[in-house]
């Protein structure tokens, strides 16, 4: 009924309102993160959390009206999580939980799309990690040349580096800002200032809620002990093995981003189950209570718990029955199951454990004990899983796993109608590196490319070590035109890295072959990998240190020579 003109006017007005909303949004998001910064892990946090919850509630209620449906969804999830925390009687948010909240608040900004989202179904490619705000590393180093080199190398790995000449400068800076990681030289001012000694007297710096790494020329025991006492997560000797240092740093950051541990609670006492859920949620885990015993396998398949807390005695089915059903499924043979029961009869406990469970917790169990038991079991299960599927040097998937992932993603791409891009990367003249500098140095080069890939690709991308110096990256829901600039950046950054062997500096390069499923609608994973390998071969023949893309024959004209 409205004329085209009126409709256009309406659209324009909506766009204006959206622009105004987006203009205010950064201030609101900044207010949220400054509130988060006030959390201290104590009972007094309640007031701050209350305000955070209210403001998130408002965001949840407004975003969608301005074309930011994902912002609403994300804000609502956070609002609910904080609501759960507030229900726990004694509030004590530990540092990892606060950090994960900080990360998720920061991530809200990235849910805002460039153009309005109208429907609930959306396809905005997930942000590339390179566009996320870089991690801030503060380096305390008075040797200007070393500081310059380190800064340059760390920046190749997308870190933001700020250099301080001494502890005093650092102390002034921490008054209004915080790094994500602190890297401190132990000996400053030619040995006149020992940083570990100085830091002991710096409560402001010690209060920083960030990981600390020391670098030192001396392997002396007192400094090492001091470093441990100051909570350092690393101690690196000079001359610095930068790739190993970077690998450690990225590992520390990755641990922070590890997904929340997932626990399934099976208990017929609904109040107790809800209490356990709240306690685990407050500890930063994701916990779910099973509604009906019959749904256990569906729930496990959908929720993918890493631990099942199972009441032993329930009216309909015993815990041992349900554990037995879980164990009938091969995929869940290793899923940790812990029984919960008031049972104190040791013989009956042993009998119950003989039937598919890993441990026994006796009720009443304290909140702290529950959290500790769940956390340590899941951590161990994760470590085990890593050992099985990951390459020990790089932490990337092994050959079989990445190949399987490629096949799976190509099938999925076809099913959902969105392309997947596969890339095969190979270090140029790697044999020469190994022969000239030895295998230990070769390993460092391999680790560096692994670290770069992990950093530059998205969380949803899958990376594996395909062979000795060959890697495969699987980029789901990604067209070649989006993949190319990112891979190009990886290539460029790798070429900019400087390696060091007994004072001799050298660089290395990689060649990349990529293929997009959109160009090969009928081919499966292994066939696409062959095509990527052929493109890689072309990149090698074309002079290395470059990317080539596979196209179905006849290949279009390639302008380079």
């Amino acid at each position, binding site marked *: 009924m409205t004329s085209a003109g*009126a409709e256009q006017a*309406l659209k324009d*007005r*909506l766009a204006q*309102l959206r622009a*105004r*909303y987006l203009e*205010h949004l950064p201030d609101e998001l900044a207010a949220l993160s400054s509130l988060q910064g006030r959390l201290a892990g104590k009972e007094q946090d309640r007031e701050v959390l209350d305000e955070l919850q*209210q403001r998130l*509630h*408002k965001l*949840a*209620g*407004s*975003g*969608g*009206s*301005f074309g930011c*449906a994902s912002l*609403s969804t994300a804000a*609502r999830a956070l609002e609910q999580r904080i609501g759960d925390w507030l229900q726990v009687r004694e509030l004590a948010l530990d540092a990892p939980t606060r950090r994960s909240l900080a990360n998720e608040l920061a991530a809200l900004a990235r849910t805002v799309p460039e153009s309005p989202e109208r429907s609930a179904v959306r396809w905005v490619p997930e942000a590339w990690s390179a566009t996320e705000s870089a991690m801030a590393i503060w380096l305390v180093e008075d040797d200007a040349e070393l500081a310059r080199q380190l800064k340059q190398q760390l920046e190749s790995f997308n870190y933001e580096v700020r250099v301080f000449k001494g502890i005093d400068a650092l102390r002034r800076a921490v008054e209004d800002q915080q790094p994500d990681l602190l890297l401190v030289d132990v000996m400053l001012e030619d040995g006149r200032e020992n940083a570990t000694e100085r830091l002991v007297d710096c409560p402001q710096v010690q209060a920083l809620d960030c990981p600390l790494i020391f670098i030192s020329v001396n392997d002396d025991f007192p400094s090492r002990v001091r470093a441990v006492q100051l909570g350092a997560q690393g101690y690196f000797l000079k001359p610095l093995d930068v790739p190993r240092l970077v690998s450690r740093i990225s590992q520390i950051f990755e641990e922070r981003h590890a997904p929340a541990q997932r626990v399934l609670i099976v208990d017929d006492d609904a109040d107790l189950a809800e209490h356990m859920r709240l306690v685990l949620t407050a500890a930063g885990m994701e916990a779910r209570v099973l509604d009906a015993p019959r749904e256990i396998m569906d729930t496990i398949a959908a929720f993918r718990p890493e631990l099942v807390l199972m009441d032993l005695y329930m009216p309909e089915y015993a815990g041992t029955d349900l554990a037995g059903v879980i164990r009938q499924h091969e995929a869940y043979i290793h899923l940790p199951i812990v029984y919960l029961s008031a049972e104190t009869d040791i013989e009956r406990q042993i009998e119950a454990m003989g039937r598919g469970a890993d441990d026994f917790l006796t009720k009443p169990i304290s909140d702290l004990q529950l959290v500790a038991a769940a956390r340590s079991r899941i951590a161990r299960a994760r470590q085990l899983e890593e050992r099985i599927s990951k390459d020990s040097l790089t932490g990337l998937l092994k050959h079989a796993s990445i190949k399987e992932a490629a096949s799976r993603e190509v099938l999925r791409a076809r099913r959902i109608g969105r392309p997947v891009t596969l890339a095969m990367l190979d270090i140029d003249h790697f044999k020469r590196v190994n022969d000239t500098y030895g295998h230990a140095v070769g390993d460092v080069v391999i680790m560096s490319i692994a670290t770069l890939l992990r950093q530059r690709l998205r969380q949803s991308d899958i990376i594996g070590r395909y062979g000795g110096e060959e890697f495969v990256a699987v980029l789901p829901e990604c067209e070649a035109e989006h993949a190319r600039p990112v891979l190009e950046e990886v290539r460029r950054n790798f070429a900019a890295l400087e390696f060091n062997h007994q004072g001799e500096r050298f660089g290395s390069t990689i060649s990349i072959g990529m293929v997009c499923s959109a160009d090969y609608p009928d081919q499966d994973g292994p066939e696409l990998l062959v095509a990527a390998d052929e493109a890689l071969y072309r990149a090698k023949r074309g002079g290395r240190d470059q990317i080539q893309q596979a196209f179905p024959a006849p290949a279009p004209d390639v302008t380079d020579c």
Partner: protein
Amino acid sequence: MSELQRILYVEDEPDIQAVAELALETVGGYTVKTCASGEEAVRDAEAFAPDLILLDVMMPGMDGPTTLEALRGIPALAEVPVAFMTAKVQPSEIAHYKSLGARDVIAKPFDPMTLSDEVRRIWQGAA
């Protein structure tokens, strides 16, 4: 009951006010009076003589439910249908708001293009 024409809308956030006014006036063709607080609504509602009242739940000062109670105390408005607008829409909460005397609950965030349809649906249910 007559046609839905006049809507009193109570919301404290300017951004949301603006988009809801656009949705109700331009898209829906209604006459809208916006109040920025429960207090303002209680003061001005009788003079405006609304056919329907939309109340945000979470507002500083008088919140939605308190405002509803105060409006119900004004004889001329006792029968005017009220709908809450809120970002929390668990079934139990909807039931709770209805028990306070609201006709219905509109989930936030609302879609500006369909808000007036939703309001009309509530009105027809009330009529």
